[in-house]
């Protein structure tokens, strides 16, 4: 019996046309306590009104600076952080209505960045990998765990009874992948899952992830700050800035044209091997503004070269580009009616 036969995912309910996961208006503010009585003084607007969907079998890459809300979004998707507002719909079932948190976690799994910190130092590798499958009451959890270890390239006879500190970073991250897959999820959220690895190991793990996606019919949400990695693995890319989505587009489309000035700066900061492919865009200066008190209107206006009065006042809506509806952007430059002096012209060179 191969590992594919032991995989026990939740059944597909809505057919291929229904997105696997759809979130709308997702919001999470973290309270900041202080003062004499320790009352809430302010709120960090970590994620503010984020909406997107992930189709069955695709990989959505999420990029942005650190602190933009990528990781909070990831944790919201699996219920590790409780949402303030918004809706999470998994294969047609809304969380909290027809879908319990435990069932959501049956369908969605996560691989974290720090491969060491995510493994309990007192448990053997096999215990860690089999834990979730046991909790979820899957058949033969240990057998499944051993097969999954084997599948990700860890010989169960050699590694099953070892402890995390005896493994290399790459091996540990394979353990984490095996652990997530041992629960037979349909969606895997990879939060900077390869960022801490050496380049050579990173490539191996990325190839493994691609193979696994095909073999088990997985859907990925891939969070990373490394654009090259995201391009390699993703079908679509979502760009976040200060807790909001500023651009979503198919990977080739966004590679060809970054419609949002922020995306453009982000891409220009990326080292390129091709001298002809370098943008002239100056890289972003300074740190992002404080998410406790984000700028009004378009949150990027404080760092945007093209900001005008309207950017300070009106919040731009996320909408499709005129010539390519799949390429969505939230910028007044692309909205002919926005009142921006250069509205409708796209981002100037």
């Amino acid at each position, binding site marked *: 019996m191969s590992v594919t036969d032991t995989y026990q995912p939740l059944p597909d309910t809505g057919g291929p046309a229904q997105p696997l996961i759809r979130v709308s208006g997702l919001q999470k503010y973290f309270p900041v306590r202080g003062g004499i009585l320790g009352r809430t003084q302010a709120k960090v607007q970590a994620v503010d009104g984020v909406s997107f969907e992930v189709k069955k079998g695709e990989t959505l890459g999420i990029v942005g600076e650190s602190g933009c809300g990528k990781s909070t979004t990831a944790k919201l998707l699996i219920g*590790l952080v409780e949402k303030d507002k918004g809706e999470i719909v998994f294969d047609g079932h809304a969380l909290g209505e027809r879908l319990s948190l435990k069932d959501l976690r049956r369908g969605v*799994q996560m691989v974290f960045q720090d491969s060491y910190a*995510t493994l*309990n130092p007192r448990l*053997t590798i096999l215990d860690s990998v089999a*834990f979730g499958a046991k909790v979820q009451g899957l058949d033969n959890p240990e057998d499944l765990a051993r097969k999954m270890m084997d599948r990700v390239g860890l010989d169960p006879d050699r590694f099953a*009874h070892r402890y995390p500190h005896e493994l290399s970073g790459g091996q540990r991250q394979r353990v984490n992948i095996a652990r997530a897959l041992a*629960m037979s999820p349909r969606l895997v959220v990879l939060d900077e899952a390869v960022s801490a690895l050496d380049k050579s190991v990173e490539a191996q793990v990325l190839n493994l992830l691609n193979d696994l996606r095909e073999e088990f019919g997985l859907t990925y949400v891939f969070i990373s700050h490394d654009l090259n990695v995201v391009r390699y693995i993703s079908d679509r890319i979502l760009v976040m800035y200060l807790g909001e989505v500023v651009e979503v587009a198919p990977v080739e489309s966004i590679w060809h044209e970054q419609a949002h000035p922020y995306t453009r700066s982000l891409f220009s900061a990326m080292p390129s091997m091709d001298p002809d492919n370098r943008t002239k865009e100056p890289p972003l200066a300074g740190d992002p503004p404080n998410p406790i008190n984000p700028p009004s209107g378009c949150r990027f206006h404080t760092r945007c070269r093209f900001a005008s009065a309207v950017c300070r006042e009106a919040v731009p809506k996320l909408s499709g580009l005129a010539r390519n509806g799949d390429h969505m952007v939230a910028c007044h430059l692309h909205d002919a009616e926005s009142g921006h002096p250069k509205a409708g012209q796209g981002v100037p060179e």
Partner: protein
Amino acid sequence: MAMAEATSIHAPEKVEKSKGYWSGVGHRLVRDPLTMFCLAVIAALILSAVFAPYLGLADPYKGSMIARLKPIGAPGYPLGTDEQGRDMLARLIYGGRLTLFIGLMPVVIAFFAGSILGITAGYVGGLTNTIIMRTVDVFFAFPSVLLAIAISGALGAGIVNSLVSLTIVFIPPITRVAEAVTSGVRKLDYIDAARASGASAWTVIRVHVIGNVLSPIFVYATSLTSVCMILAAGLSFLGIGVRPPEPEWGLMLNTLRSVIYVNPWLSALPGVMIFVTSLCLNLLSDGLRSAMNVRD
């Protein structure tokens, strides 16, 4: 449920067995001579107290008017006799029974109670945490000696009352440490990963929290045993612990004070036992701390 074997899975056939945490701890302990020595002393004290009736000692309760206050080394009385002519050696060894029991038991009970309270407070957080930890704060407003004496004094002398008051004294500090360690572990990614698997809070605590918080709490609890010994004997010394004529080191120290001008060194003997026990307990705790890699 299938989870029952989560921490004790045995491999079917040939495996590369690697060392777990506890075998490493045992290994380091065995190679620490001072700690092993203290362990031997404590073990000897406990064993001799438990098996005292089989050691061929004199009757620790039987006095003799003519054999009162024999000096140390007197023929037939290797450690002399007390103010009622009872054999000191027998009384010191029998005395270990009550002294060690009242000196160690409260920490054992407090270890369980404090761990449960502290782990709950640390893992659940929120209002539960506030209620438990603010109550603990109140007990911290009393120096431990004062609290033990206050409760024992109000309850009156007696073995059970001593156990109760000392247990109450040691629950708050253990709870505080357990809470601190647990809230630290609670923030770690592997707890998030475990929660993300859909496990209930109880399962996460049982499989992932307890194993990682118990050794620091345990080491801290062992560091309290010495204080508890001194306090337990101290209560008897004050006359609010064990009642006469039971042999108990603190109580013996108390009754022998009346003969301090007659046979001074004899009257200090029970204190030597308390001191040696307490010193060994402290050194043992330090040894455990380094063997278990627990930082302060």
